[in-house]
């Protein structure tokens, strides 16, 4: 289970799905590796990639989970909203809170490189931007394999990501995506090459030396001193990529393929281009260089630093950070400006962004990270202060005019890629670019031993040098208009020296002896070959040795020489200058200067400068030994010649001045170009910002529209609510938790003195008409118990009655945020209840009274009865009479009863038999219930009496009942009833008073407040009753 297998990180963005599908379709079902896919997903969107890819491969495709082991022949997809990491072969997920992680691919690849070393494989597929480039670098540095999606007719849809990776020079295999699986499978199988331990036996040693010789031959660099183990590892990796199984085969391949030599060369040179590489070297800078730099600087001065070959910017930012720290420590007010250049646009883009995954910053101290970087997600971005110190631009040290007036040049990753010829070109350029006593900082394996005249060593081990003033040479600066066309990194063949053969020797001798003196110069005017006898025309200039023809030319020769050379260069044909007067050591001479283009075997054009001596007219006449000027002494001629000389000299000076001025202008121009590039990149950033703002604007418009719709809905709902309020009769108040009135229905005005402006005031401030002291308390209870409370409450003046209901006000989220009070008017109901209560009480009272009356009558009747039978009859009789009266009264709901009805009712038994003998007469009179009942009883007694003992006991007797109304004291109306019996038996004395008459008297006198007059007249019984009609 522990056989290691490669883990392939695949990074893709726009257009990636297409690429991934093609990739997996072409992949074998069990390729012997695992795949981890990282894409640029929109945050909070789940990836559908597993489903899509599951169609294209038999391998299981899963979303990566935290702490998941990476298994062979499995595919894992990075989840949304997270950054993927890997440790000891297990995936780790780091969630991102907000926004997106800008470089998830770099981040994962860097982690993969650190964790899996040579078993890491990184693939960059279609996408925009440059995510993945730094990650590829990391994988390569740790011995892994790197691939990128190469362009073909179906190419990557978005090529910027793979292109950026390829441009870094660190991609091993750039092929279309369908070709990748084959390469990968072959690579995996070739891992057994590595498993063979490399014995350092003689045979292997010999092959190694042979490889180093090939390298030396082509690149000019000696790798014999290179670390052996690393050397073999790099070689083996190339063997893996090329599918070569033996060292000899590889050595052979190297001999045949110059491209492979270059590739091996680059691989061998891969160091870790991290931040603060070679800490010791930085220390030297800090200790020795920076203080000296600052010595001469005032607060308005700027320290200018140039970093050619800056690549992805780690070097530049390290320097900037170090300088910033030092400046602050020394309390200097000087400013710092770094110019960082490279020809690799893609790398520059990465450098400008200044964003590095945290796995590539492990060497930076925490203080520095906190102080100079801003953490975004899992990447660190260089902060504004440092970023503003650096200007990045595209520039070639070989082709383009250099910067100037620099205090420090740090070039640590460039020279080693150049052969000595180019180095010989570049080092003087650096010399020119530095200020007097400026410093040069090189990489650990770089040297400038050939240019000891230009630089002095400050610290040899750390490769810090200082510009020498004495040995300087006029630099041969490339002009803006002429370009060599040598791209950096391409090796230039060393110039083969001129071979020697017999013929050449002869020709050389002829040239030496008999040919006119001549030199061969380059187009810059550097002499590369002298013939003999040039001493007359050329002189070593005072000061530093130089190969510049112009510097060596004797007086009078310079101008015509320069002109002739220029003409020859421009026209491509021979140019002549005749009759040039040269001031030689002993005398003057006339010479003809011829400059002719000379095509060499190589690419460059050289120029042959021939000095042909012209016979002077004066020498024939003059004897030898005459003073110098052997010429005709013509005062005019002399004067003219003198003027001419002076003019030429002045011209010469002016030309030199102008040349200097031009050089300075060129430098300024370069700086301008650099600034321009910066501005362009700022412009691009602004463009991006503008696009982002536009898209935000669109989003805002959409949101705005939605909000408008919502507002309309809200208005409508409010309107409905208002209408509902106004239509309801139920007084309702809405309160919040502090008893502040939020709103109320119009009906509330009857109870509380509320006006619309009272919204927002506490309820307790408002006066009300209710007898409800516990209002506030009840509401608090509702808040606490979250249950409604009902209470019967009356107006203080008793005019109305309400049921008050207090309810909790629930919001959608289930919180009680207030209370609702409703007041239901139940006055009518209350009144009805009250009335009913009163009636029932009244009824009770009457019934009980009636029963008591019955008991009373029973008791009295019993007293006077002789026997039970007599009692029964009389008693029942009386009871029936009462019942009749009650029936009459209750028939009309106990309102009023007609008197005539009462009389008739009670006398009805007698009316039927003796109807003609009974006369009833009187006005229609209404009686109150009590009066009706009493009179009912009275009439009954009188009637019974009459029948038993009175006029109705005999057939001839008669009865007359008559009544009338009279006025009583005050406004009272009185009722007078006359009961007249006639023709009855002779009336005995009042001795036979039964209870009946007592009853009548008591009823009338006591109960009704009236008067009863009972007379036993001769004719018969006469009773006169006087009672008030309405009680007093």
């Amino acid at each position, binding site marked *: 289970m522990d056989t290691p297998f490669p883990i392939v990180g695949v990074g893709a963005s726009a257009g990636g799905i297409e690429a991934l599908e093609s990739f997996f379709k072409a992949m074998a079902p069990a390729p012997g590796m695992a795949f981890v896919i990282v894409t640029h997903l929109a945050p909070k969107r789940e990836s559908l990639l597993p489903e899509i890819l599951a169609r294209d491969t038999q391998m299981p495709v899963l979303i990566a989970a935290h702490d998941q082991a990476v298994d062979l022949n499995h595919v894992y997809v990075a989840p949304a909203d997270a950054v993927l990491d890997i440790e000891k072969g297990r995936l780790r997920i780091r969630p991102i809170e907000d926004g997106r992680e800008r470089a998830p691919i770099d981040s994962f690849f860097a982690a993969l490189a650190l964790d899996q070393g040579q078993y890491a494989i990184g693939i960059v597929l279609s996408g925009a931007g440059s995510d993945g480039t730094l990650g590829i670098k990391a994988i390569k540095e740790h011995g892994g394999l790197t691939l990128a999606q190469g362009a073909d007719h179906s190419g990557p849809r978005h090529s910027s990501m793979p292109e950026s990776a390829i441009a870094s020079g660190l991609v091993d295999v750039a092929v279309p995506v369908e070709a990748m699986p084959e390469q990968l499978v072959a690579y995996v199988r070739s891992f057994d090459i590595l498993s063979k331990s490399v014995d350092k036996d003689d045979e292997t040693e010999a092959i190694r030396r042979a490889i180093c010789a090939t390298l030396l031959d082509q690149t000019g660099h000696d790798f014999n001193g290179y670390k052996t183990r690393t050397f073999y590892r790099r070689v083996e990796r190339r063997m893996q990529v090329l599918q070569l199984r033996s060292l000899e085969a590889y050595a052979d391949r190297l001999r045949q393929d110059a491209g492979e030599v270059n590739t091996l060369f680059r691989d061998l040179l891969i160091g870790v281009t991290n931040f603060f590489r070679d800490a010791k070297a930085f220390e030297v800078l800090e200790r020795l260089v920076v203080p000296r730099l600052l010595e001469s600087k005032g607060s308005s001065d700027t320290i200018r630093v140039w970093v050619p070959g800056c690549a992805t910017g780690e070097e530049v930012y390290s320097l900037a950070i170090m300088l910033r720290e030092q400046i602050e420590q020394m309390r200097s007010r000087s400013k710092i400006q770094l110019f960082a250049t490279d020809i690799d646009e893609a790398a520059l883009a990465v450098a400008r962004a200044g964003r590095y995954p945290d796995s590539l910053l492990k060497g930076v101290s925490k203080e520095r990270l906190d102080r100079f970087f801003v953490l975004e997600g899992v990447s660190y971005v260089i902060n504004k202060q440092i970023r503003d110190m650096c200007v990045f631009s595209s520039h070639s040290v070989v082709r383009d005019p250099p910067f100037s007036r620099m205090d420090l040049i740090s070039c640590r990753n460039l020279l080693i890629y150049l052969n000595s010829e180019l180095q010989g070109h570049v080092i003087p350029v650096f010399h020119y670019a530095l200020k007097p006593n400026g410093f040069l900082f090189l990489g650990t394996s770089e040297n400038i031993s050939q240019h000891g005249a230009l630089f002095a060593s400050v610290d040899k081990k750390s490769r810090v040098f200082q510009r020498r003033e004495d040995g300087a040479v006029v630099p041969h600066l490339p002009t803006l208009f002429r370009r060599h066309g040598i791209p950096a990194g391409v090796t230039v063949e060393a110039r083969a020296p001129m071979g020697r053969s017999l013929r050449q020797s002869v020709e050389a001798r002829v040239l030496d002896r008999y040919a006119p003196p001549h030199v061969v110069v380059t187009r810059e005017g550097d002499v590369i070959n002298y013939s003999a006898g040039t001493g007359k025309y050329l002189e070593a200039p005072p000061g530093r040795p130089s190969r510049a023809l112009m510097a060596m030319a004797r007086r009078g020769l310079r101008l015509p020489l320069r002109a002739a050379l220029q003409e020859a260069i421009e026209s491509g044909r021979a140019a002549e200058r005749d009759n040039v007067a040269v001031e030689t050591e002993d005398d003057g001479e006339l010479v003809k200067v011829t400059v002719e283009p000379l095509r060499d075997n190589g690419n460059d054009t050289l120029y042959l400068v021939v000095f042909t001596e012209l016979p002077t007219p004066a020498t024939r006449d003059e004897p030898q030994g005459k003073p110098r000027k052997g010429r005709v002494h013509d005062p005019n001629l002399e004067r003219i010649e003198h003027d001419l000389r002076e003019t030429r000299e002045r011209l010469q000076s002016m030309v030199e001045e102008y040349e200097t001025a031009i050089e300075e202008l060129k430098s300024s121009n370069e700086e301008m170009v650099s600034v321009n590039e910066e501005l362009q990149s700022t412009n691009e950033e602004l463009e991006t910002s503008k696009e982002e703002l536009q898209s935000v604007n669109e989003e805002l418009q959409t949101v705005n529209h939605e909000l408008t719709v919502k507002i309309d809905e809200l208005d409508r709902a409010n309107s409905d609510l208002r209408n509902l309020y106004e239509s309801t009769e139920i007084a309702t108040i809405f309160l919040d938790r502090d008893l502040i009135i939020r709103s109320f229905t119009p009906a509330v005005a009857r109870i509380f003195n509320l006006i619309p402006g009272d919204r927002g005031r506490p309820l307790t401030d408002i006066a009300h008409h209710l007898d409800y002291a516990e209002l506030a308390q009840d509401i608090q209870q509702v808040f606490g118990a979250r249950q409604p409370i009902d209470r019967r409450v009356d107006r203080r003046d008793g005019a109305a009655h309400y049921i008050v209901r207090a309810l909790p006000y629930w919001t959608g989220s289930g919180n009680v945020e207030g209370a609702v009070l409703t007041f239901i008017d139940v006055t009518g109901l209350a009144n009805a209840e009250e009335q009913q209560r009163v009636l029932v*009480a009244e009824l*009770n*009272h*009457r*019934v*009980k*009274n009636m*029963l*008591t*009356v*019955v*008991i*009373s*009558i029973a*008791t*009295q009747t019993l007293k006077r009865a002789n026997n039970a039978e007599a009692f029964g009859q009389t008693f029942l009789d009386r009871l029936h009479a009462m019942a009749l009266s009650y029936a009459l009264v209750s028939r009309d709901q106990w309102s009023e009863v007609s008197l005539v009805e009462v009389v008739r009712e009670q006398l009805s038994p007698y009316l039927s038999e003796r109807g003609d003998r009974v006369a009833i007469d009187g006005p229609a009179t209404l009686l109150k219930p009590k009066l009706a009942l*009493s009179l009912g009883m009275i009439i009954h007694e009188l009637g019974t009496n009459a029948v038993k003992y009175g006029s109705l006991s005999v057939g001839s007797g008669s009865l007359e009942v008559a009544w009338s109304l009279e006025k009583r004291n005050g406004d009272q109306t009185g009722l007078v009833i006359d009961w007249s019996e006639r023709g009855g038996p002779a009336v005995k004395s009042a001795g036979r008073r039964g209870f009946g008459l*007592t*009853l009548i008297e*008591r*009823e009338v006198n*006591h*109960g009704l*407040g009236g008067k009863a007059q009972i007379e036993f007249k001769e004719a018969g019984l006469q009773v006169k009753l006087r009672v008030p009609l309405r*009680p*007093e």
Partner: protein
Amino acid sequence: MGVHTRLQGLSVLVVEDEAMIAVLIETVLREAGCSIIGPVASSGTALEKIAHEKLDAALLDVRIDGDDAYTVADTLTACGIPFVFVSGLDQQDIPARYRRCTYVAKPFRPDSILTCLDEIVGKPD
């Protein structure tokens, strides 16, 4: 009869507007040896009697002439004359102030009247 010896010779005001009930009360009292003041059928007459006659006790119907007799009750209390409510009202319908007074419900047994009278007369002032 011998049970309520205290009532002998007691002069009792009877306030009752229903004639037959007054008769009943009178009969009961007379048999117990009381002397009867009244019966009166209105609060006005009752107050007159209180003012001018010597009373030992009173029997008071709560509703007289459709009105309440509570003013009479107050006057009796003020004069220190004990009384018994005789009423057809349920006790709950009697206002709270008077609910604790001695009370005989109609219809009543003759004995109830006498027992209550006995009670109130026997109470120390």
